[in-house]
């Protein structure tokens, strides 16, 4: 048997390789650098690696090959397994930006009085002598940085995968480090470990569904590659059942990752239990990567089968929005509330996904669903990372205070922090002059344009409910004095420049994208269509 050396287009995929390379280097650092210097070295290495990868992504974006007169750009690389096209590179860019934010939050040590937000020694059982020792010796988990880098690598590969197997591998690469990271909280460790276990079990289960779907679709199309699947969907009229069940199973795996109903039940527990920096990173990164994968799978491989999956997405989108919005209303914990609101945002994003139309059906210069979803992901990421970064600041004597009662009257004690949080909430609620409004407008528009008016009506109704729970938090912070139950109240701790920078960038981006969204929208337009 001949063995041909695979051609790898290093010029296109090197940002991805940088991320994986730095992740591996991080493992080496863990083994060879002295304990007291490890934290700084790891954080600097991760930050630098991401910055280089981001620079590389911008460089790659500038050198993409144009197709069909600019309608699409990029190339299918690495023997047809990875596709580096406009949307993929755009997603790389925003994933890297939010990963940088994640690294900054991971590296914050001022809030916990000189240590990071992660457990000193994950292996030490909560409440044992070993844990106390780890704590008194000031141990820190510096493995979180390589773990983060692996997750980022997986997130970048996920939306760039051009066949089902690569997609599955990317899914696992991004998930496994996250399962671990979720269990590493320094405080409330049992909650954190429960979250990790829950996430892991459900995640593994959903991966199983995905893999089964891969097998069935392979059975239908005889190929893993999206282009071949597309051909098969267009030409093959036999074995439709295999295809349908396959689509369903693949959808389960992907919808689990984005936290769509009815696969959302892990979201609140995991978002609450995970260390808040991890929650911030995961909320933005995973959702972006998984939506990138959903878009690619449904548009590229299954685009011709639109009439089968669009109704399914209608139902899922409506259900997700209703579940997210209604359950968020009854939450009394800030992180859980944000988790349910993120479920609702998944519904809004799906509203954009199902608004896909043929290029020929669109008017000249009309917004495409891909543009809308990419833009929404950007706005959502900034607001989520920013909001969770603010949550890390609000503390009482027991560490982060995420219960609502602790937040009462925060606007009087720490006006700036409360105002920033209110601003992020207003953006999530979609109030004009914030980025969230433009994003919402974009996804609703493409859905209505594609004739999905029942979904848009449901989305509007859910937006009204959503406004209520966001505004309730603003009322709590600004118009209520002291804790309603007479308990302790939280104040905002002064963070180091790392967290401040993350919040500042989030606020600036949310404001700028709300007032002048033009450049980013042009960028999404410039990214063009997916390449097949």
């Amino acid at each position, binding site marked *: 048997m001949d063995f041909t050396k695979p051609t790898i287009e290093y010029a296109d995929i090197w940002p991805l390789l940088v991320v994986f390379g730095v992740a591996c280097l991080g493992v080496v650092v863990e083994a060879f650098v002295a304990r007291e210097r490890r934290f700084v070295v790891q954080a600097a290495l991760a930050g630098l690696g991401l910055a280089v990868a981001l620079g590389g992504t911008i460089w790659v974006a500038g050198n993409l090959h144009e197709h069909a007169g600019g309608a699409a750009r990029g190339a299918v690389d690495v023997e047809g397994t990875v596709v580096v096209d406009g949307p993929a590179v755009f997603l790389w860019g925003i994933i890297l930006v939010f990963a940088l934010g994640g690294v900054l939050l991971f590296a914050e040590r001022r809030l916990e009085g000189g240590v990071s937000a992660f457990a000193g020694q994950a292996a030490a059982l909560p409440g044992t002598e070993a844990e106390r020792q780890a704590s008194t010796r000031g141990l820190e988990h510096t493995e979180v940085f390589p773990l983060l880098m692996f997750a980022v690598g997986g997130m970048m590969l996920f939306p760039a995968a051009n066949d089902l197997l690569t997609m599955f591998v990317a899914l696992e690469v991004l998930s496994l480090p996250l399962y671990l990271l979720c269990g590493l909280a320094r405080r409330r460790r049992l909650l954190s470990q429960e979250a990790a276990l829950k996430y892991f079990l459900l995640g593994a289960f959903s991966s199983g569904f995905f893999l089964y779907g891969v097998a069935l679709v392979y059975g239908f199309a005889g190929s893993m590659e999206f282009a071949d699947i597309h051909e098969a969907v267009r030409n093959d009229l036999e074995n439709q059942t295999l295809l349908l069940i396959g689509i369903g199973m693949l959808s389960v795996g992907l919808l689990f990752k984005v936290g769509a109903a009815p696969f959302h039940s892990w979201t609140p527990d995991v978002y609450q239990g995970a260390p808040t920096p991890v929650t911030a990173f995961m909320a933005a990164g995973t959702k972006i990567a998984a939506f990138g994968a959903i878009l690619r799978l449904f548009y590229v491989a299954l685009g011709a089968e639109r009439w089968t999956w669009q109704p399914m997405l209608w139902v899922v989108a409506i259900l997700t929005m209703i579940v997210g919005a209604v359950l968020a209303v009854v939450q009394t914990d800030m992180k859980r509330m944000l988790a349910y609101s993120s479920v609702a945002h998944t519904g809004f994003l799906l509203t954009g996904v199902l608004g896909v139309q043929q290029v020929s059906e669109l008017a000249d*210069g009309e917004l495409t669903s891909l543009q809308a979803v990419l833009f929404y992901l950007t706005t959502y990421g900034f607001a989520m990372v920013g909001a969770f970064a603010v949550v890390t600041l609000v503390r009482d004597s027991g560490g982060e205070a995420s219960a609502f009662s602790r937040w009462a009257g925060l606007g009087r004690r720490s006006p700036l922090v409360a105002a920033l949080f209110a601003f992020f909430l207003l953006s999530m*609620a979609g109030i004009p002059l914030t980025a969230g409004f433009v994003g919402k*407008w974009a996804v609703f*528009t493409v859905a*209505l344009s594609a004739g999905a008016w029942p979904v848009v009506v449901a989305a509007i109704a859910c937006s009204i409910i959503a406004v209520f729970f966001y505004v*309730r938090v603003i009322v709590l912070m*600004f*118009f209520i004095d002291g804790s309603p139950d007479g308990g302790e109240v939280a104040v905002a701790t002064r963070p180091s420049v790392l967290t401040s920078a993350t919040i500042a960038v989030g606020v600036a981006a949310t404001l700028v994208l709300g007032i002048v969204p033009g450049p980013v929208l042009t960028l999404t*337009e410039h990214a063009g269509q997916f390449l097949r």
Partner: protein
Amino acid sequence: MTDFPWLTVLIVVPLVGALVTAVLGRGRGDDALPKQVALGFAVLTAVVGILIATQFDTGAGMQLEETHTWIEAFGVHYAVGVDGLGLLMILLTVGLVPVVFVASWHEADGRSPAAFFAWALALEAFALCVFAATDVFLFYVVFEATLIPAYFMIGGFGREGRAYAALKFLMFQLGGGLVLLAAVIGLYVVSADAGTPSYLLSDLSQIDMSTTWERWLFVGFMVAFIVKAPLFPLHTWLADTTEKATPGTSVLLVCVLDKIGTFGMLRFCLGIFPGASEWATPVVVTLALISIVYGAFLAIGQDDILRLIGLTSLSHFGFITLGIFALTTQGGSGSILYMVNHGVGTAALFLLAGYLIRRKGTSLISEITGVENRAPVLAGLFLVAGLATLGLPGLSQFVSEILVMIAAFDYHWWVGAVSVTGIVLAAVYVLWLYQRTMTGPPVPADAGMKDLSRRELVAVVPLIAALVVFGFWPMPLLDAANPTVETLLEHVGVTDDQPTVPVAEEGAH
């Protein structure tokens, strides 16, 4: 001179003022400096508004236009311009804000007054942008943006229970706003189907959309404006809000912000959906009539002065809407005039009621009596403002009311008949209010009550003067309003019925 961006300046000045006031006010407590700066900016805005009015040519339609592409992918422009309707609303806004500032000088003391003044200036900037916007998306953005300052003004500075009132206000308004959002998105789809997506009012009014689309979109716009204006049955936020907010806030809400509702009906419902507007008249007219009568009855039954004044506005907005949807020139002009007069008259009532409540420490009518013995000037001005509200000839509201009523009788005799009862009921609530609070024997507890101070007089006297002047000489207002109404009705495609005068035939007897 014509290329000078007058309207942008008009919008930017109060916005800058809001920022400066907010920055100056940090850590200054009750210092007067931020307030003086805020008042300075408000007066400056008023001067810009007057300069715009002097350049305005009543016959020239939309003018002082500025159009810049804002978000190309959405077909959105930063486009502003004024016509007669917009100009009157702008003048009302720039006129009322300094008045409110003077009247509310000490209203927010002890609770960061700088914030109150800064929010008010921000509100003014957004409201001015609403009245000047000629791009539907821009309109929507600022329409919603006005809610944020309004929310913080109610929630931060009102009476006990203000947080709930602010939440209720915001939920109603944002609910209406999101329905409007759906309709605005629908407009994009319609406009994209017709060729190139654009939100410019001038492009949208040319679009030939299907009847179904037109009606649905009209309903979306109308629901938002009914919440805003407010009309029955979406009015329940109004009384709670005016009761809990400070009188100054209520003036800005009821006299400026709520006008956006009726303004929007004229500018957008009639302007973009003429066919649907005609189709919907029976329903809207019915709602307007219910609002007139129901609002008046509710007002009669109130024991809280601020609630009472808030609910009179429900009745008045019924009149305004009735005039708009009667679809005659008298009705249209009368409505626009009504919007201005109601703004001035109700502002005077709110501010005077605020003075009274500040003196008495209560807003309950049942606990106030005999004020005219101690504070005759306050009582006298209150009576004048009240008489204007009930439409006494010689005061400005009369002119607009009579025009609307002519239109109502023209629409159908029973519509006119029902609307007349609104005037009778107005006499009941105004005069009864006056009788219960102002007349009667002096109360010993009021011995120390002072009449209006000079500052308080400076705030309300211009309003009272305007009521009298425009009562006798409404022509400048009508000159500005008439061309707008004629253009709109031409667009809708209705013409006034000529009065039929039976001519006596020769030799018939």
